[in-house]
């Protein structure tokens, strides 16, 4: 299922969910040309926000990505609160919900390193380019090397 950003992001915003866009889609927001398939979101772990997240995603029928069908997976606030990071497939595309992110910490810790973005008639927080570079560096995954090179090139372009 390919992402429907125009459905997913407004649903979260209208649902009052506190989240920060990170990962490859955040890179695209900053101008990256690499195609990415999943939406990575750092979300606030407060019970109220977990409830809002569950409510907002419910219409998209979230399910554990790469899990066999038919598991007794109940999408409810308790599940979100008892877990931390979730890789989900939804009717609006693949979504990774991150309670914490390496190099960035929690939603509250990452919040000072975000800016507000307007798209699809809603406004939401997106991690800044310098912090996104930090996150990619901290992840230290070989698959990120090319993405990191592109982000650094973007930073150069924006500074020139």
């Amino acid at each position, binding site marked *: 299922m390919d992402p429907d*950003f125009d459905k997913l992001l407004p649903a979260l915003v209208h649902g009052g969910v506190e989240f920060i866009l990170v990962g490859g*889609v955040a890179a695209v*927001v900053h101008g990256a*040309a690499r*195609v990415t398939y999943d939406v990575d979101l750092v979300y606030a772990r407060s019970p109220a926000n977990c409830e809002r997240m569950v409510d907002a995603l419910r219409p998209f029928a979230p399910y554990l990505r790469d899990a066999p069908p038919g598991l007794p997976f109940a999408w409810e606030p308790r599940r979100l609160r008892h877990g931390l990071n979730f890789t989900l497939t939804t009717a609006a595309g693949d979504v990774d919900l991150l309670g914490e992110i390496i190099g960035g910490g929690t939603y509250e810790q990452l919040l000072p390193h975000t800016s507000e973005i307007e*798209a699809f008639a809603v406004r939401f927080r997106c991690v800044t380019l310098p912090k996104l570079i930090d996150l990619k560096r901290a992840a230290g995954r070989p698959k990120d090397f090319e993405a*990191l090179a*592109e982000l650094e090139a973007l930073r150069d*372009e924006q500074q020139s």
Partner: protein
Amino acid sequence: MPPPLEPDPIVTAFRQHVDRSLLRENLKLTPAQRLAKLQSALAFMAELRQAGKNARSALPPRI
């Protein structure tokens, strides 16, 4: 957290091969336009994936 390697030799090597013309074109767009462009690219690829799948299923079975 380990201190970041700056400059990382691998990333520096990759940087030489980044197509900056694509980045410069993207920087002319708004963030919303960049997201719309990504979504459009994904729809295009999904269409091609389906076309490939259809073509494969239309092939005669291998003996």
